[in-house]
C-alpha cells in the first residue's frame, strides 16, 4: 500500500498517540475550579504554550477550535462581523479564488446572507496572489474592506503565497489579513509573529495530531464575533469544553512537526522530486501544477510534499480508480463531499481549460512516505495513464 494522500490526512505520530491516550482516562474539565479541573487546565495551557512556541506566537494568541474548518469560519465570519460592527462601511471581503472550501464557502455565505461584497483577487498561472494585486484591490476603497484572506500554501497545487508581503500591504491600510496555513504548518517556516497576519488557521490531523482539533492564531488586538456561543472559553471567542486529550496530542504533534521541518523539507521534498521525475518519465505530457520551483530561502516555490499533475485526455477519477486498484492512494484534488467530481476551482482560477482540469491527480507525501511508495507510483503511473486515456472523458 502506498499512501500518498497526506494532505487529506496524515498518520498520527506515535508520540501524539501516547500523549492522547495518556489523557483519555484522566477526568477534568479545564474550566472547573477543583483539582481535576486545575490539572486539565494545566495540560491545556502547557499545550497552548507548546503550540505557540512551534508557531512563533504568544500563548494567548492560540485559540483552540475543532479543526481547520472551524478556525477558517471563525476568522472569516467573525472578523467580518466585528469589523462591520465597528464601521458599517466595511463590507468588502477580499479573498484568493484558490482558497480551501472552508474559507471559500464561508466567504460566499457572507456574500449571500450578510450583505458582504466579495472580491476575488487575481492569481497567476501558479495560483499565486501578488502583493500588488492585493494593494490594487484595497486601494479601490480602503475604507470599505472588512478583511482579506489568502492561504499560506495551496492544498491542491502546492503553490506558496508571499504571506509576509501580503500582510505588509494589508497592514498599510489597517486591513486584517487571515491565512489558512493548514498545509504550510510542518512544511514551511510558519512564524505567526513574524508574518504580520491578523489570524492564521492550523489543523491537528495534518501534522500528525488527532482529528477534530485545530487552532486559530489570533492577534491579541482582534476580537472576532463568535461563531459558537456558550461558556466563554478561549478568549470568549470560541466556546465549548476543551478536548484535553486532543489538545495535548496536537501540541506534541505540532512541536515535532516544527522541529522536524528542515528534515521534512529535505528528505520528503527529495522523495517528492523523485516522484515528479518518475511521473514525467512515464507520462511525458503530464503537466505539473503550481510553482515548479522548490520552496527555499529566496523562492516561494511549492510545498515540499506536494506533487500535482494534469494528464491531458484523462479523467482524474479513472486514474484514481486504476491506481487505487494497485494500492496507490492519492486524490484528484481536494476531497469532494457530494462524490461528483467537478473541475477544481483552483485549476480554473489559474486559467486551466475545464476539460483539462478534469484530468488531475494530487500526490501528497508525509512523514511515513518511503522510496518504495515512489517506486510503486513510477511503476503504475504509465500504464494507468495509457488506460485512462483510452477510456477518455465521459
Amino acid at each position, binding site marked *: 500500500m502506498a499512501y500518498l494522500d497526506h494532505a487529506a490526512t496524515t498518520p498520527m505520530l506515535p508520540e501524539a498517540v501516547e500523549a492522547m491516550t495518556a489523557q483519555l482516562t484522566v477526568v477534568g474539565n479545564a474550566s472547573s475550579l477543583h483539582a481535576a479541573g486545575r490539572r486539565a487546565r494545566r495540560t491545556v495551557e502547557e499545550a497552548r504554550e507548546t503550540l505557540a512556541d512551534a508557531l512563533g506566537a504568544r500563548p494567548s494568541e492560540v485559540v483552540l477550535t475543532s479543526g481547520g474548518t472551524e478556525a477558517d469560519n471563525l476568522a472569516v465570519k467573525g472578523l467580518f462581523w466585528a469589523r462591520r460592527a465597528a464601521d458599517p462601511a466595511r463590507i468588502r471581503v477580499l479573498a484568493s479564488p484558490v482558497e480551501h472550501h472552508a474559507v471559500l464557502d464561508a466567504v460566499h455565505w457572507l456574500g449571500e446572507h450578510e450583505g458582504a461584497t466579495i472580491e476575488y483577487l487575481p492569481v497567476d498561472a501558479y495560483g499565486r496572489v501578488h502583493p500588488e494585486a492585493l494593494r490594487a484591490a484595497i486601494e479601490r476603497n480602503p475604507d470599505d474592506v472588512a478583511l482579506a484572506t489568502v492561504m499560506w500554501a495551496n492544498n491542491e497545487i502546492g503553490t506558496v503565497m508571499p504571506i509576509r508581503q501580503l500582510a505588509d500591504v494589508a497592514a498599510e491600510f489597517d486591513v486584517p489579513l487571515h491565512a489558512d496555513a493548514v498545509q504550510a504548518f510542518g512544511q514551511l517556516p510558519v512564524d505567526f509573529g513574524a508574518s504580520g497576519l491578523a489570524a492564521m488557521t492550523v489543523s491537528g490531523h495534518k501534522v500528525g495530531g488527532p482529528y477534530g482539533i485545530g487552532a486559530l492564531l489570533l492577534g491579541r488586538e482582534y476580537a472576532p464575533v463568535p461563531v459558537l456561543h456558550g461558556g466563554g472559553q478561549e478568549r470568549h471567542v470560541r466556546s465549548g469544553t476543551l478536548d484535553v486529550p486532543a489538545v495535548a496530542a496536537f501540541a506534541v504533534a505540532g512541536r515535532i512537526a516544527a522541529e522536524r521541518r528542515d528534515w521534512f523539507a529535505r528528505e520528503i521534498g527529495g522523495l517528492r522530486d523523485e516522484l515528479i521525475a518518475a511521473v514525467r518519465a512515464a507520462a511525458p505530457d503530464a503537466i505539473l501544477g503550481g510553482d515548479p520551483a522548490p520552496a527555499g530561502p529566496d523562492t516561494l516555490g511549492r510545498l515540499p510534499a506536494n506533487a500535482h499533475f494534469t494528464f491531458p485526455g484523462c479523467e482524474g477519477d479513472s486514474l484514481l480508480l486504476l491506481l487505487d486498484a494497485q494500492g496507490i492512494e492519492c486524490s484528484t484534488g481536494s476531497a469532494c463531499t457530494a*462524490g461528483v467530481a467537478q473541475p477544481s476551482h483552483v485549476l480554473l482560477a489559474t486559467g486551466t481549460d475545464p476539460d483539462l482540469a478534469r484530468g488531475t491527480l494530487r500526490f501528497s507525501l508525509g512523514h511515513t512516505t518511503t522510496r518504495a511508495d515512489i517506486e510503486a507510483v513510477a511503476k503504475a503511473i504509465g500504464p494507468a495513464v495509457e488506460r485512462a486515456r483510452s477510456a477518455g472523458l465521459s
Partner: protein
Amino acid sequence: MTEIPAAPQRRLRVLAAMSGGVDSAVAAARAAEAGHDVTGVHLALSANPQSFRTGARGCCTIEDSRDARRAADVIGIPFYVWDLADRFREDVVEDFVAEYEAGRTPNPCLRCNEKIKFAALLDKALALGFDAVATGHYAQVVTDADGNRELHRASDMAKDQSYVLGVLDDRQLAHAMFPLGDTVTTKDEIRAEAERRGLAVAKKPDSHDICFIADGDTQGFLANRLGRAEGDIVDESGTKLGTHEGAYGYTIGQRKGLRIGTPAPDGKPRYVLDISPVNNTVTVGPVEALDVTALTAIKPRWCGTAPAGPGTYTAQLRAHGGETPVSAELVDGTLHVTFDEPVRGVAPGQAIVLYDGTRVVGSATIATTGRATAAA
C-alpha cells in the same frame, strides 16, 4: 484417489452499478461473494447533483449515492461516483421529452440500459480494464452449447426484467452480469438477504418512478418542459368533444382524466385512441377501437443474430405486461408483427420485445399500429 477439483470460475473484474437500492446492493454483494474482483460505481445522472430529497427514491440523489457507498463499504469493495449526467440528459431525458412531444410513449429505463448502463458505462468500464458490468436486474445471461450468449427471463417470472434489457445486443450481453437473475425469490427474501449481509438498504423503499421525475408527476414534468399547447379532443369522426392543454399529456389507452363533458352516444367510457402532434389533436373512442392486430416496429436490436424469415414468438409490450403470441418478420429493417389475438392499448414509442420461450430474441420500437374495428 483424490477427486480432481472442478476448474474454478474465472475471476472477473466486475464493475457493479449501484443505484443505492437494495437489488443492486445485493447483486454487487453476490458478485463479490462469487469471487469476482468487484468495484462499485454509482452513476450521478441528475443534472443537479446537489438535489437531496428526504425519502427520495430513484437514482439521482446524494442520499442514494450515500446509500450505495455505505453498501459498498459493508461489502468491502472500492466505490466511486461517476458523473454521467450529460450523457443521461442527452440520451434519456431529452429523448423522453422528444418522444412525448411526437405523440409517442417512450420507456426511459430501456433507453438508459441501452445508452447509459450498457453503453457509456460499459465502454468506460471496458477501457479501464473491467470485464463486465453487473446490475441488479432480474434476468439471466445463458451461454448455449455453441458458446452463443442468450438473454433469458429471470427464473422468477414475477420479477423478470428482461423486457427493459431487450435492447442489449450480443456484445453488450457478453459483458453483462445479472447476479439476481437466477433467484426465485420474493422481494422480502432479497431484503432478508440484504439484512443478513448487513446492508442498511434492506429496508429502503422500492423505486418505481421515473428516476429523473422526482415527484412522480410525469404530466407536470412534461408540461414544464413542453409548455401549454391547447388543442382539440375529437371522436373518430373528427367531431370536437373537448379541449386539452397539451397532447403530450395523453397516452393511448388512457381512460381517466379526459374531462369530456358530453357522454358517448352509447354511454360507454371513451379511451384515447390516437395522438396526433401534427394537428395537436387527441382522438378518443370506444374500447373496441383500441384493439390492435398488427404493428410495425423500427430500430430492431437482436440479442444475437437477426432471425431470417418469418417466425412465431411471444411478445411483451410493456414493462409489467403479459405475453401474447405473434408472428413476426423483418422486412427491409422494419419488423412487421401480427397478433394471434387482438391486443389493447399499444402505443407508438413503446418497445416490443420478442421471446422464444424464455429467451429474448430482440426488440424494436413500435412505429405504427394496425387497428381492427369491432367488425373485423
